[in-house]
């Protein structure tokens, strides 16, 4: 009986040490991960320390920042200010969308532009062709043919965006990625012929009548240090970085 007690006393600490070590390290790891992803949840001291290493990216429509005042990263609507009403097929409408570096580090930036047709309730209309929404992309960006589809255009800015650590909110580099939009005149020719059973008259239904076009932009930024590894890790994309910092995409096969 005594022997059994002695044996159990010897075994007890080993198991608990292992479990405690594992649990402690796991909790540390989890908390580290969260504080890096969302500095808002950290203590003020740690946040101030992290700020000097922060990567930040902002979207702009003209001179308007597209970020809510509480600094929470939600999807914010923009107005398509160049439109001034409804879009006539074929007309070029200026629409200046830009990204800026509002962090404290140089960064590489990519933008995912998603285009689609929606009905009046905002639901996507999938049988209409999104490639009839033409985007006039700004210079300095390279389109990833591998990642892009009719509904999604992925573009990478080929140079690092400089930061202004003294004034990160407004001092960093800002570059335009979209200059304007055009709705293809072909939307006016996409008609479905029918016949009114009562009158016998031929009827034409314009498939693009009463629909909206939606353009959403997601800007991603990543540090320039160890850029190739960072981009591969963060975005899952292999890129080439030249000695002068120019980013390029591998040729598609």
């Amino acid at each position, binding site marked *: 009986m005594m022997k059994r007690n002695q044996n159990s006393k010897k075994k007890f600490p*080993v*198991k608990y*040490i*292992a*479990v405690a*070590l*594992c649990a402690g*390290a*796991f909790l*540390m*790891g989890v908390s*580290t991960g969260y504080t*890096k992803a969302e500095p808002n949840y950290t203590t003020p001291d740690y946040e101030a320390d992290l700020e000097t290493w922060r*990567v930040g*990216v*902002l*979207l702009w*429509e003209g001179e308007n920042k*597209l970020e809510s005042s509480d600094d929470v*990263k939600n*999807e914010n*609507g*923009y107005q*398509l200010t160049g*439109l001034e*009403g*409804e*879009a*006539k*097929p*074929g*007309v070029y409408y200026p629409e200046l969308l830009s990204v800026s570096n509002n*962090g404290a*580090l140089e*960064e590489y930036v990519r933008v995912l532009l998603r285009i689609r047709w*929606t009905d009046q309730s905002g639901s996507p209309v999938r049988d209409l062709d999104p490639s009839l929404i033409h985007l006039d992309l700004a210079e300095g960006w390279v389109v990833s043919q591998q990642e892009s589809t009719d509904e999604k255009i992925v573009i990478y800015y080929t140079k690092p965006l400089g930061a202004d650590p003294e004034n990160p909110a407004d001092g960093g580099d800002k570059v335009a990625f979209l200059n304007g*939009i055009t709705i293809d*005149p072909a*939307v*006016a020719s996409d008609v479905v012929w029918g016949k009114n059973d009562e009158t016998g*008259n*031929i009827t*034409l239904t*314009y498939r*693009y*009548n*009463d*629909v*909206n*076009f939606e353009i*959403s*932009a*997601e*800007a*991603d*930024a*990543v*540090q320039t240090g160890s850029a190739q590894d*960072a981009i591969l*890790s963060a975005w899952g994309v292999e890129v080439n970085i030249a000695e002068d910092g120019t980013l390029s995409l591998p040729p598609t096969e």
Partner: protein
Amino acid sequence: MKEMWKNCSHKKQLLLVLSALVLCLSVSVGMTLAYFTDWTAASGEGKVADMKPDTELKEEIQNLDKVITVENTGTAEAFIRVKVFYPNPELNNMEVTFESDEGWEEKDDGYWFYTKVLAGGETTSELKVNVTAHVKADGGTPDFQIIVVHENTPAVYDESGNAQPRDWYAAQSQTEGEEGNE
């Protein structure tokens, strides 16, 4: 045998501790390799202008003549053309001539095209069909019908916003204005 079992148990415990340490280290190493990133998103939408023209032919009969206008009763900007069908004048002892206000232009295919874009609520200028029926030998006037067909097609635009008619192959057609005259 007991000693051997004891040693084996210690080895298992040691392996357990080492395994736990390796697991812990590997978790923390993964976290420290995270890169600095950020993202933001926004979206906007616009509406395509109404493309379905809605037009109405209007005729005014003055003696034997017809005054034709077309009104855009919808909101879509449109282009208009009309075609006037009438009997062979020589065989029917009559004369048919056209008198057009600014904007109307006759093409080789027999259509009269209104060359200006017609905005919602606007009406074309007048296209007048002048009919002269000569008295027949028996003292009567010829029987004839004048039928007007009008068609519309939506306006499309160049990059600067200049309107032009979309191709006419799918033009909306409307036949009206049958007239019997004795």
